[in-house]
């Protein structure tokens, strides 16, 4: 989980609090988790925010639980006694799976992403746009937002585009720049509706990002439509 580079852009308190409380939509929580993977500061902050939740949880007036509930739980628990103990913490460290391919081996990806790719980005379905850009849609089950992995080839750029909704981007590998700044691994970048920018990947390395974009209507190809605002007609792709 360590990252030597300094993470400069962090989720604000709103994102961190909603994440700690569990109410942040999964598609956005995925971006926060990607940031936390690289940011010990925000992990410490999440720890504090979770403590606040714990305190409120513990102070709740007790609600009556039906008398059969304990019996049912005990029956399930007794059934589980002979099963081998679960060790979820180690089971989750699957980034070292044997079929990992050289290409991504060197990058430490957030757990959810590394499970999804099973160690190789080529396991995903990619759509290519132009020479230097491709994306792969992630199904988070969120109807209102679209999440994707984006890859910009070294030196390549994403065509100038306009945001129809809020967009969160977290860099997983490499770096990119836009008119405002240069962004590195772990940076959590929020762009609001109406902003225009032209991200360019740095020359020495391909850039991999995760992005979650507000998408009021569920469409197959939101990202494509975002890039091509004038073709934005709700026909099914």
């Amino acid at each position, binding site marked *: 989980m360590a990252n030597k580079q300094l993470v400069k852009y962090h989720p604000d*308190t709103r994102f961190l609090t909603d994440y700690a409380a569990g109410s942040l939509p*999964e598609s956005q929580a995925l971006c926060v988790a990607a940031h936390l993977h690289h940011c010990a500061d925000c992990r410490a902050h999440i720890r*504090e925010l979770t403590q606040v939740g*714990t305190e409120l949880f513990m102070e*709740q007036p007790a609600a009556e639980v039906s008398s059969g509930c304990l019996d049912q739980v005990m029956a399930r628990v007794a059934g589980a006694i002979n099963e081998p103990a679960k060790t979820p913490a180690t089971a989750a460290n699957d980034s070292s799976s044997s079929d990992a391919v050289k290409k991504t081996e060197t990058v430490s990806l957030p757990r*959810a992403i590394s499970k999804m790719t099973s160690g190789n980005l080529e396991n995903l379905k990619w759509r290519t746009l132009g020479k230097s850009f491709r994306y792969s849609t992630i199904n988070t089950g969120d109807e209102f937002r679209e999440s994707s992995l984006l890859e910009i080839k070294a030196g390549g750029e994403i065509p100038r585009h306009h945001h129809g909704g809020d967009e969160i981007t977290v860099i997983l590998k490499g770096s990119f720049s836009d008119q405002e700044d240069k962004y590195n691994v772990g940076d959590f970048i929020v762009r609001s509706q109406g902003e225009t920018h032209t991200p360019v990947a740095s020359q020495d390395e391909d850039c991999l990002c995760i992005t979650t974009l507000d998408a009021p209507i569920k469409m197959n190809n939101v990202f494509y439509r975002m890039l091509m605002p004038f073709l934005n007609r709700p026909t099914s792709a």
Partner: protein
Amino acid sequence: MGTQDLNQLGRQKLVAVTGSIKTHPRNMNTSVVKDESSTWTECLLRIANHSDQAAFQQLFKKFSPLIKAFAIRQSAVGEQASLSEELVQETMVKIWQKAGSFNPKKASASTWIFTIARNTRIDLLRKTARHHQNRISNDHSEDGFDVEDIWIENEDEDAFNQLVKQRNNEMLHKSIKELPDEQEFILKKVYLEDKSHTEIAEELNLPLGTVKSRVRLALTKLRVSVER
């Protein structure tokens, strides 16, 4: 909402509000809190090491009414009595199954249990939603992600020593009781009712910025650093 705010330009620290501690008639007994907390830790360790059912029942007695209350506060779960008991059951079974991974150096027993209840509630809501919508799955669809792959258990060991931690928890415990009603109200919406800032803004018909600043104000009172 300010774009600036969202972009987190700069990381100026808001100085925590100190002093002006109101004395409320509500009193608190820190020694009870302390004793209880170590009881729950022992229970979890006994479950982990000895599959101790008596320890588990002791936890059940304390936590199941809290989990049920937590379930009821979430409107979609609370509407159905069966769902709120399902949350109690699922959470308690997970506590049993996962007790072996509980590490008192990383989290207190109550935080660990709260986290499991929170994740289980996310999971339950997801399943209910999936059940109701005829979701169109695409590409590598299946079931999306495991909740634990996104809401990841903190692997960092707590840097503070036990004494400092205990003092912090006591301070938090105390200062929550001293929050003005408005701030306590909004924090409960955030943490217990499972409402995001955006949802709270809609429900209370307030600008998102107002909700954000109230939450920040409350957190500052609780001496939780609000850097951004």
